[in-house]
C-alpha cells in the first residue's frame, strides 16, 4: 500500500495533500476498499490487531448512522469493542472519527454505504502516513523500502509482533496487487505510445532546422535513456502513463517543460533531475498532441506551423475521424477518463505498445490495428502513409537503443520478469533483419561450445574483432547464449581462454542487460575467483569487468558477499610513484588501476565502503593518490569522494594527509579529476580541522579559480560545494576574499543548475556572516537574484536561500533592498513549505528582516493571514521550527498592533503549552517570545493563568546565560501581574534572581531587581506571606544599589 499510495496515486499539486479526482485514483480507491474488506473477511485475526495510533479523519458520518455494537450518546459514538486497556476501538466525536483496527475500519466503511468512497478518500488524505499509524514506524519503514527480503521477525520477538508480521505481509501483498491492478488499468487506457511520441519529437526536431525561418529553437529529451518499451520516463512515472519529458525552446517564449503521457501532453513543473518528485506535477491543461500544446504556448509557432504543415494537418483530421470510430468499438473505456483527458487522435491510433503492458497483449494489438487499417480503406491508406513517414526506422536497431538501460531500474522492481520476457520476445522478432554479424556471432558461439583450447582462443580473438561496444552486437551475443558460454570458460583452468573470455566480457558488460545476465548466472563469483589467480593480466581484466558489472546494487552486493572487495583491495598494493619502474612493477600499477576502477564501482554502496575500509583499503588508496597518472587518480579520488560520505573516511582523509594531494590535484588540467577532488573536499570540509588543512595547503585559491570553469556544471557544483563548506571557517572566508570569491559566486546566482545554486547560495550565506561582505553582496547586485530564488521549489536550495537572505538582512541597507523586492513576503510564504527545515530556516530569516526593516510592522500587517500562519506553526512538533517561530514572534511582538493580532490568534495558550520543554534552545526563544508578548496588557494575566510562570522559574536553573537573560526579562514582565508574583514566590524565584542581579549586564540587573521589587510590593500589600528574612534583606541592599 505504501508504494502505491506514495508513488502511484495522483496527489494534487497544491501541496495540500488532496487526492485528485481522476479515474485512476477512483479505481485505486475502490481497490483499497476491496482489499480492506477482504482483509477483514479472510484474515479475522490480523484485522483485530490494534493500530499503534488511531487513523483519524473528518467523517461525514453522524451518530445516527451507527447501529448496534456501538455506544451512542448524543453526538458521540464509541464502539463496544475495546482493546486490552478498555479503550474503544472506534470513537466518533463529530466531525472526527478515530479508528484503531481493520475490523472497525471495515465495519465503518460498511456503514458508510454509498459514501464509502468519500470516506476512504478523506481517510487516506488525512492519514498520509497510514502505515506508520497501523504498524508503528519501524514496520512501515520496512514496507516502504520495498525490500521483501528483510525479515522483521528477527528483530522483534514480542508477542503481538507475530500478528504484526502477518499483517505486514498482508499489507505488502495488498500493495503488490494494487500496483498490478493499476498497471492493467493503465494498459487499457493507452492512447499514445512511445513510438508515436518519439516520431512526433523527431518531426518537431525538423522544425528546429532552417536558421531564422525555424519554428522552434530546440527540442530535446530530458533523458537519453530509452527503456525497452520505448519510454524515457522512470518506471514509477510510467505507472502514470508518462512516456517522456521534453524541454522545448520556442522562438518567442521561455522554455517549455513538457510531459508526454499516454493521456496526452501537458506542461510539467520542470523536470531537471530524476528524483525531484515535484517536477513531475502537471501545471497546464492536457493537450491532445505536441503541436497543439505548442500552438497554445507559442504564438509564433502557431502562426507559422499552419504555413509549413498544411498537409499534415489534414491528415490528422482524417485520422481523428477514424479514431472516433475505433473508440465506439471499445465501450469498456471508463467515461470519467474520457472527460478528463482528451486522447490524442494521432497517437492513440498508433498506440501499439502500451508503456508498461504485457507482451502477450502487444502482439494481438498490433495485428488488430493492422487489420483495421485495411478495413478503413481510403482513410486507412492516408493513415498508413502518414505513419510510415512519421515513424522513421521503427524496426531498425536504433529502436532498441539502450534497451538494457531498463534493467538497472527495473532490477529492484517487481516487473523485472515481465521486462525480461518482453526483451527476449522483442529480440526474437527483430533479430534477423537487424544485425549483419548475427550469423557470425552465432557460429562463433557454436564453435566456443565445442572447440578445444586452440579453437576457443581463435574464436574469442575473432569475437574481439567485432564491434563489441555496439549494442546490437552485445544483444546478439546475449541472445545466442554467448554469455553463458563465456562464463563457463572462466571456470576452466585454461589461462588463455579465461583471458579471451574476460576480454570479451569486459566490453560487452557495458550493456546493463549483459551485466544482469552475468549476475543471474552467478558469473560474478567466477570473476571474483579469478582475482586469486597468479596471472596479472588475468587479475586486471577480471577487475575491469567487475568495474563494469558492479553498476547496480545487487551486483555490488554480490561482489562483497563473495569476498570480492577484499581481493580487489589487495590488487591496490603497488608502488605508483616509482621513477623507473620495471615491466613487472608497471604491470602491478596497471592491475592496481583496474582494481581501483572496480572498487569505485563498488563503493556506491555503504556496506562496500565499510568493507573496503576493513580490508585495509584506505592507506592503499592514500598511496595511489600520490600517483602522477591522471588515469589512476580519477578512480582513486572518485572512490575516496564516494566514500567520504562516511565519517571514518573523512577522518582518514584528514589524518592520512590526503587533503594535501587532493588540493594539489585541484590544479590538474583534467576536469573530471578536479571535479572529484573538489567534491571530496566538499564532503570533508565541514570538519574544522580539514578546512584549516585546505587553507594550509593553499587549496582555496584553486577552488576560486575553478569558478571560472562555468561550462562544466558538475565541476562547478563540486567546486562551489567545496567553497561553501570551507567558508564555514571565518579564516577561510578572509582568504577567499583575497581572491574575490564572493564576486564570482554572486555572478553564479542565475542560470545555473540546482546543484550549483544550492552550493553557491550556501557559500554566500557563510560569507555574509562577515559585515563587510554583506555590503559587497548588495553592491554586486546579489540580492535581487537571491530573492528570485525564494520562489524555487527545491527544499535544500530554499533552506540555503532563506539562511542567506536572513544573513544579508542584518545590514540595514540590504534590508531596504529586500523589502523593496518584497522579499519578506516570499520568505514568509515559505513558512507554508512542507519541509520543516525550510520552515525553520525561513522563520530564522524573518527575525533579522523584521528587526531591520524600516516599517516592519506595516510590512507584516500587509501579509494577509501571515500572523495566523505563524501562530499556527506553534503547533508544529519540530523543536527547531518551534524555536525559530518563537524567535520570530518575539520580533513581531515588538509592534503593538501586530502583537494585538497575535493575541487574537491565541498566541498565549500556544506559547504556554510549549513551556514544558527541556530543549535549551527552545527555552531561550520561548522565554523571549513570552516576554515580548507580555507587552499586550491582558497577556500577563493570561500567561499566568495558562501556567507559564512555574516552568519559567525552572529555566533559571539552566547554565546558559542567554536563557537566564530572556527568562528574567519575561519574569519581570510577568511580575507586573500580582497573581504571577504569588506563584513566582511560591516557586522560590527570589533566590536565583538575586544571583542574577550580580550580573554585569545592566538591563539584566534592572529586570531581575524589578521583578523582585514587584514581588516585594505584593508582599507588602499582604498578598503573600512574608518571605524569609535573609533574602529580603539582600534584595533590599541590591535594590538600593540600583
Amino acid at each position, binding site marked *: 500500500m505504501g508504494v502505491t499510495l506514495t508513488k502511484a496515486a495522483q496527489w494534487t499539486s497544491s501541496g495540500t495533500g488532496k487526492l485528485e479526482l481522476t479515474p485512476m485514483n477512483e479505481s485505486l480507491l475502490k481497490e483499497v476498499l476491496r482489499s480492506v474488506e477482504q482483509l477483514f473477511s479472510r484474515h479475522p485475526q490480523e484485522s483485530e490487531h490494534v493500530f499503534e495510533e488511531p487513523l483519524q479523519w473528518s467523517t461525514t458520518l453522524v451518530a445516527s448512522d451507527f447501529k448496534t455494537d456501538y455506544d451512542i450518546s448524543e453526538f458521540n459514538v464509541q464502539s463496544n469493542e475495546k482493546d486490552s486497556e478498555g479503550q474503544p476501538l472506534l470513537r466518533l466525536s463529530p466531525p472526527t472519527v478515530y479508528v484503531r483496527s481493520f475490523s472497525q475500519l471495515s465495519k465503518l466503511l460498511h456503514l458508510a454505504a454509498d459514501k464509502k468512497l468519500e470516506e476512504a478518500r478523506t481517510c487516506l488524505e488525512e492519514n498520509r502516513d497510514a502505515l506508520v499509524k497501523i504498524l508503528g514506524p519501524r514496520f512501515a519503514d520496512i514496507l516502504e523500502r520495498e525490500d521483501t527480503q528483510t525479515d522483521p521477525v528477527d528483530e522483534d520477538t514480542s508477542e503481538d509482533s507475530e500478528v504484526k508480521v502477518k499483517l505486514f505481509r498482508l499489507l505488502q501483498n495488498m500493495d503488490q496487487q494494487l500496483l498490478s491492478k493499476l498497471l492493467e488499468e493503465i494498459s487499457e487506457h493507452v492512447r499514445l505510445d512511445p513510438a508515436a511520441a518519439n516520431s512526433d519529437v523527431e518531426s518537431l526536431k525538423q522544425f528546429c532546422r532552417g536558421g531564422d525561418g525555424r519554428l522552434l529553437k530546440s527540442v530535446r529529451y530530458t533523458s537519453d535513456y530509452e527503456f525497452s518499451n520505448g519510454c524515457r520516463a522512470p518506471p514509477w512515472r510510467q505507472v502514470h502513463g508518462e512516456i517522456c519529458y521534453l524541454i522545448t525552446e520556442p522562438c518567442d517564449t521561455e522554455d517549455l517543460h513538457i510531459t508526454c503521457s499516454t493521456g496526452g501532453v501537458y506542461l510539467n513543473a520542470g523536470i531537471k533531475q530524476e528524483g525531484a518528485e515535484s517536477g513531475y506535477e502537471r501545471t497546464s491543461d492536457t493537450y491532445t498532441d505536441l503541436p497543439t500544446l505548442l500552438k497554445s504556448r507559442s504564438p509564433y509557432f502557431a502562426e507559422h506551423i499552419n504555413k509549413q504543415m498544411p498537409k499534415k494537418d489534414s491528415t490528422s483530421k482524417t485520422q481523428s475521424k477514424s479514431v472516433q470510430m475505433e473508440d465506439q468499438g471499445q465501450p469498456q473505456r471508463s467515461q470519467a477518463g474520457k472527460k478528463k483527458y482528451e486522447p490524442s487522435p494521432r497517437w492513440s491510433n498508433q498506440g501499439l505498445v502500451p508503456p508498461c503492458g504485457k507482451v502477450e497483449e502487444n502482439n494481438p494489438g498490433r495485428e488488430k490495428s493492422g487489420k483495421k487499417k485495411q478495413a478503413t480503406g481510403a482513410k486507412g491508406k492516408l493513415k498508413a502513409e502518414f505513419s510510415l513517414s512519421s515513424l522513421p526506422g521503427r524496426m531498425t536497431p536504433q529502436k532498441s537503443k539502450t534497451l538494457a538501460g531498463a534493467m538497472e531500474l527495473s532490477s529492484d522492481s517487481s516487473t523485472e520478469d515481465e521486462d525480461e520476457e518482453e526483451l527476449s520476445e522483442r529480440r526474437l522478432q527483430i533479430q534477423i533483419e537487424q544485425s549483419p554479424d548475427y550469423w557470425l556471432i552465432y557460429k562463433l558461439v557454436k564453435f566456443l561450445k565445442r572447440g578445444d583450447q*586452440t579453437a576457443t582462443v581463435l574464436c574469442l580473438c575473432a569475437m574481439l574483432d567485432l564491434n563489441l561496444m555496439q549494442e546490437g552486437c552485445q544483444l546478439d551475443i546475449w541472445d545466442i547464449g554467448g554469455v553463458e558460454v563465456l562464463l563457463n570458460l572462466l571456470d576452466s583452468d585454461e589461462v588463455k581462454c579465461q583471458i579471451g573470455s574476460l576480454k570479451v566480457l569486459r566490453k560487452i558488460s557495458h550493456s546493463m542487460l549483459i551485466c544482469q545476465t552475468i549476475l543471474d548466472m552467478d558469473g560474478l563469483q567466477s570473476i571474483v575467483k579469478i582475482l586469486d589467480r597468479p596471472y596479472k593480466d588475468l587479475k586486471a581484466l577480471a577487475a575491469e569487468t567487475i568495474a563494469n558489472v558492479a553498476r547496480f546494487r545487487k551486483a555490488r552486493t554480490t561482489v562483497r558477499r563473495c569476498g570480492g572487495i577484499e581481493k580487489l583491495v589487495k590488487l591496490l598494493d603497488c608502488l605508483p610513484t616509482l621513477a623507473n619502474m620495471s615491466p613487472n612493477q608497471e604491470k602491478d600499477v596497471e592491475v592496481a588501476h583496474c582494481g581501483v576502477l572496480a572498487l569505485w564501482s563498488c563503493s556506491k554502496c555503504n556496506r562496500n565502503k565499510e568493507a573496503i575500509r576493513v580490508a585495509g583499503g584506505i592507506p592503499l588508496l592514500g598511496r595511489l593518490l600520490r600517483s602522477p597518472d591522471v588515469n589512476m587518480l580519477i578512480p582513486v579520488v572518485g572512490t575516496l569522494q564516494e566514500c567520504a560520505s562516511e565519517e571514518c573516511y573523512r577522518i582518514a582523509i584528514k589524518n592520512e594527509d590526503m587533503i594535501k594531494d587532493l588540493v594539489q590535484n585541484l590544479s590538474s588540467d583534467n576536469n573530471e579529476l578536479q571535479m572529484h577532488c573538489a567534491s571530496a573536499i566538499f564532503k570533508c570540509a565541514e570538519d574544522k580541522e580539514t578546512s584549516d588543512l585546505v587553507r594550509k595547503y593553499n587549496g582555496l585559491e584553486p577552488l576560486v579559480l575553478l569558478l571560472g570553469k562555468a561550462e562544466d556544471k558538475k565541476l562547478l557544483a563540486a567546486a562551489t560545494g567545496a567553497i561553501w563548506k570551507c567558508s564555514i571557517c571565518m579564516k577561510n572566508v578572509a582568504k577567499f576574499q583575497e581572491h574575490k570569491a564572493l564576486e564570482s559566486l554572486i555572478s553564479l546566482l542565475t542560470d545555473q543548475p540546482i546543484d550549483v545554486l544550492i552550493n553557491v547560495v550556501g557559500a554566500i550565506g557563510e560569507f555574509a556572516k562577515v559585515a563587510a561582505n554583506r555590503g559587497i553582496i548588495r553592491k554586486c547586485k546579489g540580492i535581487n537574484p537571491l530573492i528570485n530564488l525564494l520562489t524555487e521549489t527545491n527544499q535544500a536550495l530554499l533552506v540555503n536561500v532563506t539562511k542567506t537572505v536572513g544573513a544579508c538582512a542584518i545590514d540595514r541597507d540590504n534590508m531596504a533592498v529586500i523589502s523593496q523586492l518584497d522579499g519578506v513576503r516570499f520568505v514568509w510564504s515559505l513558512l507554508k513549505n512542507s519541509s520543516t527545515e525550510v520552515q525553520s530556516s525561513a522563520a530564522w530569516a524573518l527575525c533579522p528582516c523584521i528587526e531591520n526593516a524600516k516599517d516592519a510592522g506595516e510590512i507584516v500587517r500587509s501579509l494577509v493571514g501571515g500572523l495566523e500562519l505563524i501562530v499556527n506553526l506553534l503547533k508544529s512538533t519540530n523543536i527547531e521550527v518551534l524555536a525559530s517561530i518563537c524567535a520570530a514572534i518575539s520580533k513581531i511582538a515588538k509592534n503593538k498592533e501586530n502583537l494585538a493580532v497575535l493575541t487574537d490568534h491565541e498566541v498565549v495558550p500556544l506559547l504556554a503549552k510549549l513551556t514544558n520543554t527541556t530543549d535549551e534552545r527552545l527555552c531561550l526563544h520561548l522565554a523571549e517570545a513570552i516576554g515580548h508578548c507580555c507587552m499586550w496588557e491582558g497577556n500577563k494575566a493570561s500567561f499566568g493563568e495558562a501556567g507559564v510562570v512555574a516552568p519559567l522559574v525552572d529555566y533559571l536553573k539552566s547554565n546558559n546565560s542567554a536563557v537566564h537573560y530572556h527568562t528574567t526579562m519575561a519574569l519581570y514582565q510577568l511580575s507586573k501581574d500580582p497573581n504571577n508574583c504569588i506563584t513566582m514566590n511560591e516557586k522560590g524565584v527570589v533566590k536565583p534572581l538575586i544571583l542574577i542581579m550580580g550580573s554585569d549586564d545592566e538591563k539584566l540587573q534592572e529586570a531581575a531587581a524589578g521583578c523582585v521589587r514587584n514581588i516585594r510590593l505584593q508582599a507588602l500589600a499582604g498578598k503573600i506571606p512574608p518571605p524569609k528574612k535573609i533574602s529580603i534583606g539582600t534584595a533590599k541592599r541590591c535594590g538600593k544599589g540600583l
Partner: protein
Amino acid sequence: MAHISLLKRKAIHALAETLSKQVEHFNETEVEALIGLYHETLGESAAQGGAVTGLDRNRFRMLLYHMFGMTDDMIMAGVFRTFDKDNDKFVNEKEWVKGLSVFLRGTLDERIKYCFNVYDLNNDGYLSKEKMFNFLKDSLLGQPSEEDPDEGVKELVEMTLKKMDHDHDGRLSFDDFKKAVKEENLLLEAFGTCLPDTTSIEKFEHQVFQKQGKP
C-alpha cells in the same frame, strides 16, 4: 649423476662457460644444469650402445611429454624441428640450450618467431590454409548431425586467416603472424599449444636448477 665421470663433468663445465655467453636468458650454472639434464637423458641410450650424436626425435618427444605434458604429435614434431636448427635430425647441446632459452624464458619477439617456426611445417616461410587446417582439424568436437565435419574447421581457418592475413595473399607470412600477435597476444599459439605454461615452467626450472644446487 653418479654415472657421469669427473672428466665429463669438467667438459660440461667448460661447455657451459662458453654457451652461457651465447645464450641470453640463462646464467652459467643454469646452462650447466641444462647440459647435465641433456646428458642424463642421453646417458640412458648411451648405455645401450651405438653412436650418439644428440637427442633424437623420439627421446626429445618423451622429454616434452614428461616435462611439459605435450601430446600433439604434429606440434611436437614442429618443436623438434625448431630446436634442430641444423636439420641433422638431432638436437645437440648447443641447440638444446638455445632452444630452451626461448622455450622457457623467451621474449615475445623470440616466442613469435619460435611459434611461427613450429607451425611452418615445411620451412617455406608461410602458413598456408592447408597447414592451418592440419593443425586445427581436431580442434572442434564433431557433431554427428553435421554433414561435413570438416566444414566447421574450414570456417575456423577462414576466420583466422581473415583476421591475421594482413597482406591478403591467402596465407600467413611471418610478418602477418607477427603483426597479428602483437595486436592480440592470445594469437601467439594460434594453431596449438607449443610453449609450456607458467606452472610447468616453474616446475621444470625448480626440478632442474635445484638439483644442480645439491651436488
